[in-house]
C-alpha cells in the first residue's frame, strides 16, 4: 500500500512506492528553503536506498543555496551532537532506524540538533505545500564540504565527560552489541575502547543487509542472547540501525522487553539524577517506569508519543532525562536526542558503581504483564474512529492524549495510530496476565468487527 507520513520525525515511507526521489527532493527543497541557504549537516545510515536519498538531498540543498556538510554514514546520536558542534543551521538525517527492510526516512533537525517541534514543522510544511522553493541561479548555489573528522572524537569525549570513566574501566566489562548491520559499530567500538570495555560485536558490518527485524525486542535479540551466554558477557544490547533504540540482554541471557530499557537505565542513574525532580516519557510507557521513578522520588511527565514531544517537554521543564517504551533514552546535558551510547554508558557506570550483575538489576524491576499488538488499520477517519472504543469500556477512566488511554485500578490500555506506519498500536499492561488477555481480546474485537 502507498503510505507516506510527514511529521516531526520527518518524511517516512516505503522506498520506491511512497518514498521516491520526486517527493524526497520536494521535501529537501522545502528544507533548503526553510534553512535559508545556511550550512546544513547531512548524514545517513546504511540502508541501501539511503545513498539515493543522500544524493537527492545534496542536490536539493545546493540548489537552495545551502552549503552541505557531508557527515557520511553515522549514527543518529552523532547527528544530533554534530549540528550544534559545527554551528550549522540544521541538519538532515537519512535512515530508517527501527523500521523494517524496505522503509526509509528523511528527518530534519534544527540548529540545536533536535527533531523539529510542531511550530517549526508547520513552517516547513507551509513551504513544502506551497511548492515555492528557493532555487538559486548558477553562481549562488551551494557547495559540499566534508564534516570535520574530529566530531566523532568530540562526541565520545562528551559521553566520557558525563560518566565515571574510571569506575567503568576498573570493572573490566565484556559487552555484546548487535548492530543489525547499521551505522553503529565504528563509533561504539571507539567509545568502548575509551572505557576499556571488551566489545563482542555481532552484525557490525555497515552494509544495510538486515539480519533480523531492526526493532529492538526480545524476538530480535536472540543472536545477541546466544553471544552473551557463549561469550560470558556482563550484559548485551540489541541496537536498531541508527542507535536510537535499544533492548537489553542480561548476563544470564534474559532478553528484556524494550519497555524495560528506560526503567532499567533509570534505576541505575541514581547518582546522575541526584538534583533532579522529574523525568519525561510518553503516555504509553510501562507502570514499571512509574514505580522506579516513584522510588527515586522523581515525578514522571507524560507526553504524546514521539521524540520531538519528549525533547520539548524536557526543555520546558528543565528535565535532563527522557525516554520511552520503545527502548530510547536521551540525556540532555550530553545530547539533544535519543542516544544508545549514553544509555549504554550509564548502565555500565551503574553496574560498576553498584557492583551488581545485570540480571540482579532486571530482577529488582517491578514487572507487570504487558501485551503489545499491532493491527493493520488505514481508514480515512481512523483517528476519530479509534476514540469510539471508549464506549466499549464505560468502567475505565479515559484520556485522549495521542490516541486513547484507558485506565483501571489494576492496569491500563493505550490505543493509538502509528505516526510512521498504517497500523494501530495497542499496549495493555496489567498486574494480572488474565486481565491483560481479557482487555486485549475486547479491544481486538472492536477492530475486527
Amino acid at each position, binding site marked *: 500500500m502507498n503510505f507516506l507520513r510527514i511529521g516531526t520525525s520527518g518524511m517516512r515511507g516505503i522506498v*520506491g512506492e511512497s518514498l*521516491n*526521489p520526486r517527493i524526497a527532493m520536494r521535501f529537501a*527543497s522545502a528544507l533548503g528553503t526553510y534553512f535559508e541557504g545556511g550550512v546544513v549537516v547531512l548524514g545517513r545510515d546504511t540502508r541501501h536506498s539511503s545513498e539515493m536519498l543522500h*544524493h537527492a538531498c545534496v542536490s*536539493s540543498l545546493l540548489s537552495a543555496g545551502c552549503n552541505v556538510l557531508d557527515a557520511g554514514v553515522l549514527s543518529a546520536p552523532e547527528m544530533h551532537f554534530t549540528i550544534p558542534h559545527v554551528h550549522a543551521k540544521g541538519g538532515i538525517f537519512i535512515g530508517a532506524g527501527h523500521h523494517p527492510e524496505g522503509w526509509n526516512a528523511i528527518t530534519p533537525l534544527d540548529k540545536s540538533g533536535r527533531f523539529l517541534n510542531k511550530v517549526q514543522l508547520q513552517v516547513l510544511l507551509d513551504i513544502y505545500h506551497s511548492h515555492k522553493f528557493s*532555487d538559486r541561479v*548558477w553562481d549562488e*548555489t551551494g557547495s559540499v564540504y566534508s564534516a570535520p573528522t574530529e566530531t566523532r572524537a568530540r562526541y565520545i569525549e562528551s559521553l566520557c565527560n558525563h560518566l565515571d570513566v574510571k569506575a567503568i574501566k576498573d570493572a573490566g566489562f565484556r559487552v555484546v552489541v548487535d548492530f543489525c548491520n547499521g551505522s553503529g559499530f565504528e563509533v561504539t567500538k571507539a567509545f568502548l575502547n575509551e572505557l576499556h570495555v571488551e566489545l563482542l560485536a555481532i552484525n557490525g558490518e555497515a552494509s544495510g543487509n538486515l539480519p533480523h527485524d531492526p526493532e529492538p525486542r526480545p524476538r530480535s535479540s536472540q543472536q545477541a542472547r546466544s553471544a552473551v551466554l557463549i561469550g560470558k558477557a556482563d550484559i548485551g544490547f540489541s541496537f536498531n540501525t541508527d542507535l536510537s533504540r535499544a533492548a537489553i540482554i542480561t548476563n544470564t541471557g534474559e532478553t528484556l522487553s524494550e519497555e524495560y530499557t528506560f526503567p532499567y537505565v533509570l534505576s541505575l542513574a541514581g547518582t546522575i539524577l541526584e538534583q533532579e525532580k522529574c523525568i519525561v516519557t510518553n503516555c504509553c510507557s510501562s507502570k514499571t517506569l512509574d514505580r522506579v521513578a516513584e522510588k527515586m522520588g522523581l515525578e514522571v511527565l507524560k507526553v504524546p508519543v514521539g521524540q520531538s514531544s519528549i525533547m520539548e517537554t524536557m526543555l520546558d521543564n528543565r528535565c535532563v532525562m527522557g525516554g520511552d517504551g520503545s527502548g530510547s533514552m536521551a540525556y540532555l546535558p550530553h545530547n539533544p536526542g535519543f542516544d544508545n551510547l549514553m544509555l549504554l554508558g550509564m548502565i555500565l557506570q551503574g553496574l560498576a558503581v553498584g557492583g551488581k550483575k545485570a540480571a540482579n538489576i532486571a530482577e529488582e524491576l517491578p514487572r507487570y504483564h504487558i501485551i503489545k499488538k499491532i493491527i493493520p488499520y488505514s481508514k480515512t477517519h481512523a483517528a476519530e474512529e479509534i476514540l469510539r472504543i471508549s464506549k466499549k469500556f464505560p468502567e475505565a477512566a479515559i484520556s485522549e492524549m495521542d490516541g486513547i488511554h484507558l485506565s483501571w485500578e489494576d492496569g491500563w490500555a493505550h490505543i493509538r495510530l502509528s505516526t510512521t506506519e498504517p497500523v494501530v498500536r495497542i499496549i495493555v499492561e496489567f498486574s494480572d496476565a488474565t486481565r491483560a488477555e481479557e482487555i486485549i481480546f475486547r479491544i481486538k474485537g472492536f477492530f475486527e468487527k
Partner: protein
Amino acid sequence: MSVPDTLKVSISGVRGIVGKALTPRHISDFAAAYGTQMGKGRILVGRDTRSTGKMFEHAVVAGLLSVGCKPMIVGIAPTPTVQMAVKEYNANGGIVISASHNPEEWNALKFIGPEGLFLSEAEAEELLHVYNQPERVYVKESEYRSPIYIDGIFDYHKKKILDAIDVKKISSKRYRVAVDCCNGVGALYSRTLLEAMGCEVDTFFDESEGRFYREPEPIAKNLNFICNKMQENIYDIGFAQDPDGDRIVVINPEGEPIGEQYSLLLAAEHLLANAKGSSIAVNIQTSRTIEDIANKYDATVIYTPVGEINVTKALLGNHCLMGGEGGSGGIIWPEIHPCRDSFGGMALILELMACRSKTLNEILDEMPQYDHVNRKYAVSRADAIELIRTLSFEFEKERTDQSDGLKISWEDGWTLIRSSNTEPVLRVFIEGKDPLSINRIEKLLDLENRVHLIGI
C-alpha cells in the same frame, strides 16, 4: 516575449537556465526516466566544468539509483570521452551534464545510448514519452545498487588517439601550440594529450573551477584573448575548444581565427588524401570547399541534417571514413569513436601539418577559399518556421534542400536558414565565392526587414 524562455524539454533533452526554471527536481526526474528507458544497468555520468555540474550530478545519480541503475560517476570529462567509455565499461548508456557552448547560467543533459552515440530522434522521442508519464516505476529497497566513482576516464580516450596517429612524426616537428580551453574540460586534458605528441603547449582559460572567463562558443568574436597572445607569431597553430570538448576551432600563427568551417576541412584534407575513393558525411551547414576537397580525392560527400546524431547515423550507415559538422567546428573520426571530438581533431590537424611538412598557412593557401557570414535573429520557433516556409515558396525555382531548415544554393554561393534547436533564434549562414556574392544573397533574402516585420 510572453513565454519565459528558460526551460526547454525536447527531443534534445532537458536544457534551461539554472534556478530560473531548471532545477535538480527536473534533472533527477529526467535521469530516472532515462534509466527506465535504458533498462537499469550501468550508466556513466560525466559533466563539464560548470559551477552547477556537481549539483546536477547528485540529482542524476539520485534519479538513476531510484530506478535500479548503477551510476558510474566519472566527474569532469569531455563529452566524447564519456561517449566512447560507454562500450569500454559495458554500460547501458551515459548522461553528460553540459549545456555545450551555452553560457554559464545554463545547464542541460545529453543522453548517450548503449552504442556510445547520442539518442536518435526516435529514441529521444521515446525518452520524452517516458518522462511525460505521470507515474514512474521505482525499484524497491532490496533492488538498490551502489554508484561507483571512476578515476582517469580520459586515459582510454588519449591512448586511442595516440595509437591512431603518427606520434613520432608529430613529435619530430616540436610544434608550439596554443590552446584556449574555455575554462572547460580541455583545461584538464588538452595539455596532457598535446605534450604526449611532443608539442610545446601554452594553455589559456585553463582554470576549471566552474567559471567561464570568456563567452563559451568558440567563434571569432570570443577568441580575442588567445589571438592577442598569438600575435608575436611564436606558435605554429592555435586551438580553441568549447566547455565540453566536442568542438574545435583553429587559429593561424598570426593569431587570426580561420573560422569554424576549416576544422573539418583540414581534417578531411588529411584523411581523404590518404584513402582515395572513400566517403564523408557532413551536415548541410558545411562549406562548399568540402566538395572541392572530395573531388580532388575521388570521395563522395553525403549531406545530413544538422545535429551530431544525424551525421553519425549517415556516417555509420554508409561506412564513411569520417564526418563532421562544418558550421560548428565538429570533426568526427570514427577510428577513435563516431562522435565529435576536439581532441582527436587537434591530433589530426597536427598530423596533417607533420605529414606534409608544411605550415598551416601553406596548407590553407592550397584550399579553395570562400567567404562566410553567420547571422542570428531573435525569432520564436513558431515564427521561424513561418518565415522559412515563406522563403521556400519564394525561392522554389532555385536549388533547395529542406532536410533541416532551408538551404538555397546558387552558382556563386549558398545559404542555410534554420531555427536553432537550443535557443529561440533564427540562424543564417551564407557562403559565397567573394564578399560581393554574399552581399547579393543577403539582399535577396532581405531577412533584416522580414524579421523586423514579424516584430510589428
